[in-house]
């Protein structure tokens, strides 16, 4: 028996296995980077306005990364999300501009969003079919879909940018919940989270270390969010949408049968099959979910830049995968979760935003980002080995 087992608390803990050390690594890296940029930018990094911008910048990657977390938990991968994002986004722009849905106001925007979700889900279903039914490796299937998606985007757009989209759709990015209401929502969410955590703590499902970390992260996170959002316009609608995706996936992974199947398949597919887990259906659903989220991310991207370009979402799959891995989810599947992914996304976002803020050119940024990804995963691996 190893020391890890021994220090495990003696109570019922129905949380799926999580990588404790990894959570701390990403969190500490996040705080360190934030403080570094605050210093280098002479105090402009931690301003409300900048943090609010940062929150809008990370929404697209967050939406992709939560879906990617589920895919990677099944020991799969989806390389097509960037292209699917571009195709769905381009469809939104075309429906708005060329088909005149922009004139339809909110209803038109709703249809555009549904179109994007449908296209994403369709691409995901194709991936899922090839992975689960035809038994082709996810890497190859989604590599193919990545090229197909990019090709289709270029075909439907004629390789030209399509802009501008209608105000209703644009408001996904430009609208905010008023600061006062935002404050109430944040404090309410914090209270709810603490209440739920306290109840599971009282029932003995949560050990002190995890409980304490939850307390620190949630109160700290809430304080920063209050500072960012109440000090500048309020919570952006985009953030609401991305947070909704996170919540949905969290619930699916931790409270639904689906989540158990995802972890079981990732940990030991053969065992899952022989236990009667519907492996094919679960895998198919996972890729459809990922596709739909990529479609949604495409919509958010179009709303943010007020139009679609054929090159949208290039390398977005790598950002999403990097965020998931930095967040401690194992590429082998079966271990990890959404919590770590949020930290991974924030870390990537802080790097992008901070480096731009202190005037590092976009080209050099890529080099730094690559180095940070390698470093983060190295630290994570080392922490796990020690544990």
């Amino acid at each position: 028996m190893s020391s890890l087992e021994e220090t495990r608390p003696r109570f019922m803990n129905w949380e799926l296995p999580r990588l404790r050390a990894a959570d701390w690594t990403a969190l500490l890296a996040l705080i360190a980077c934030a403080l570094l940029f605050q210093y280098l930018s002479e105090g402009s990094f931690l301003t409300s306005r900048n943090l609010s911008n940062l929150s809008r910048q990370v929404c697209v990657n967050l939406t992709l990364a939560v879906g990617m977390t589920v895919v990677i938990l099944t020991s799969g991968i989806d390389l097509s999300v960037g292209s699917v994002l571009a195709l769905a986004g381009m469809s939104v722009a075309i429906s708005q501009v060329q088909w005149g849905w922009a004139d339809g106001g909110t209803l038109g925007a709703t249809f555009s969003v549904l179109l994007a979700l449908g296209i994403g889900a369709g691409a995901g279903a194709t991936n899922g079919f090839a992975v689960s039914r035809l038994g082709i490796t996810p890497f190859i299937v989604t590599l193919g879909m990545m090229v197909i998606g990019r090709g289709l985007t270029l075909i439907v757009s004629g390789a030209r940018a399509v802009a501008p989209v209608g105000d209703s759709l644009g408001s996904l990015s430009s609208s905010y919940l008023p600061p006062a209401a935002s404050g109430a929502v944040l404090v309410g969410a914090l209270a709810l989270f603490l209440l739920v955590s306290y109840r599971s703590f009282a029932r003995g499902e949560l050990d002190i270390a995890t409980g304490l970390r939850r307390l620190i992260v949630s109160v700290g996170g809430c304080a920063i969010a209050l500072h960012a959002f109440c000090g500048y316009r309020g919570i952006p609608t985009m953030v609401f949408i991305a947070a909704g995706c996170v919540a949905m996936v969290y619930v699916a992974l931790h409270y639904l049968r689906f989540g158990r199947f995802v972890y079981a398949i990732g940990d030991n597919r053969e065992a899952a099959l022989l236990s009667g887990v519907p492996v094919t259906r679960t895998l198919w659903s996972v890729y459809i979910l990922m596709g739909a989220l990529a479609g949604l991310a495409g919509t958010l991207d179009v709303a943010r830049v007020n139009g679609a370009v054929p090159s949208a979402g290039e390398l977005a799959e790598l950002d999403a995968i990097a965020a998931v891995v930095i967040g401690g989810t194992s590429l082998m599947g079966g271990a990890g979760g959404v919590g770590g992914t949020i930290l991974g996304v924030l870390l990537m976002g802080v790097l992008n935003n901070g480096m731009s803020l202190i005037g590092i050119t976009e080209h050099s940024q890529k080099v730094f980002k690559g180095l940070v990804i390698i470093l983060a995963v190295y630290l994570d691996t080392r922490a796990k080995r020690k544990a």
Partner: protein
Amino acid sequence: MNQEAQPLLRVSAVKKQFGGISALSDVSFDIERGCCIALVGENGAGKSTLMKILSGVWPQGTFTGELRFAGEPLHLKSPLDARKAGISIIHQELCLFPHLTVAENLLLTEAPPFDGSPSASLFQAVGWPLLYAKASQLLEELGFEISAHSLVKDLSVAERQMVEIARAVHHQARLLILDEPTSALSTREVHRLFEVLDRMKASQVTLIYISHKLDEVFRLADRIVVLRDGRTVADLNPKETTPEEVVRYMVGRPILDKRYFEASVPAAEPLLEIEGLGHVLSDGHPRLEGIGFSVAPGEIVGVAGLMGSGRSELLRSLVGVLPGKRTGLVRFDGKVVDWKNVSESLDAGVSFVPEDRKKDGLCLDLGVGFNLSLSILRMLSDRLGLVDANRERNRAEELRRYLTVRCGTLAQSVKSLSGGNQQKVLLGKMVARGPRLLLLDEPTRGIDIGAKGEIYEIIAKLAAEGMAIMVVSSELPEILALSHRVVVLREGRQVGVLENQGLTQETILSLAIEKETL
């Protein structure tokens, strides 16, 4: 001092702790040159920890105590050090490269250069003819009938073991450690292995033989060292002891050669009836033929046969996971059935417990509770798929107690449990569905005697509660201890159905073995 008079290996007062828990608390013994000692003990007695110390996995400094090899203090920093010193270990799970040839596996690290020069450069061209010639010569010297050109993945388990042994010989091993080498071998293959080991002993190679099978231990060993709870509790001469005494030292209590099943089966209509069952694999090769018997509720039917007789395939064919096409008639509860996959057979009330708990059975990194509830999630969740955590916990706790799984919490990963407890979790996971027919493939492979007895009791209890059970096992004592009736298979054909009354291992074995090899 005369080096020859020294024991080859002296282990004195070795202690090793993990966290606060001591895995080895006091292990000491000597091995003379050319001698074979058997190391026995229940799982968790510390055998594998000791092996890891001897093979350099736990380097010098991570344990206390002293190792002396050929009179010199032995300081191992890595497994490579151990191999250089002349210690080779053959693991339960073999460490070969399946897609490479036998020759490449044997001489991988020292492929002879093209021009025959003694060079070890990474980019030296390999002299393939020379490599194969060297490998063939090595195999021939050892008397192994294996082609150096075969791919390892095409070899049987026994042949792979031979390759491992050849590799150890090639590395001039002076001490060869074998960890449960016969767990996947047929009787004939075991005999061949023993001949090889006898020859190695004759050429002054020292052996440490780890096994649960006492008949093998008595056949092979010059001395039997018993470990219990991390201590050496006995060092016995096989000529002066009995298996009963060894077992007594291992478990600290005597166990009887008892029959676990209820003597009388209530007369009932058979639940499962098989008539003229056959199975043709996807490549057109017939695997099973002419199998027909029935299983009634409350009855345990054993399926015996040598390796490759189609024991496991029979179970896999029934639940629809064996590739290819099944022929013949299977009736379950009076209705003709043809299950296409595990979900269908599970829904019908049939649970299949696969043989390889690590590969096919359990999600090792996930918790005990997670595994126990995996096959019953549909019953524990509502229509939306929301899992009722309270009911899940209660059900898992119930199963844990019924099966006497020893674990700290239900969240503890299955990986951290002992083999016996892992096997109980696997059994529990499939029993959770409340099946009417339970198909068990090797229910106690590689677990210690104490846990075996507990699992036998659970199986007998399930049968007494009215479950129909089929047990496939390579261990005849297990078949005899558990089954009311025994179906014997030979090369995919049924060669007998025997009532377990006055039945002996010899009777079963003589049916299972081909006539010409007897």
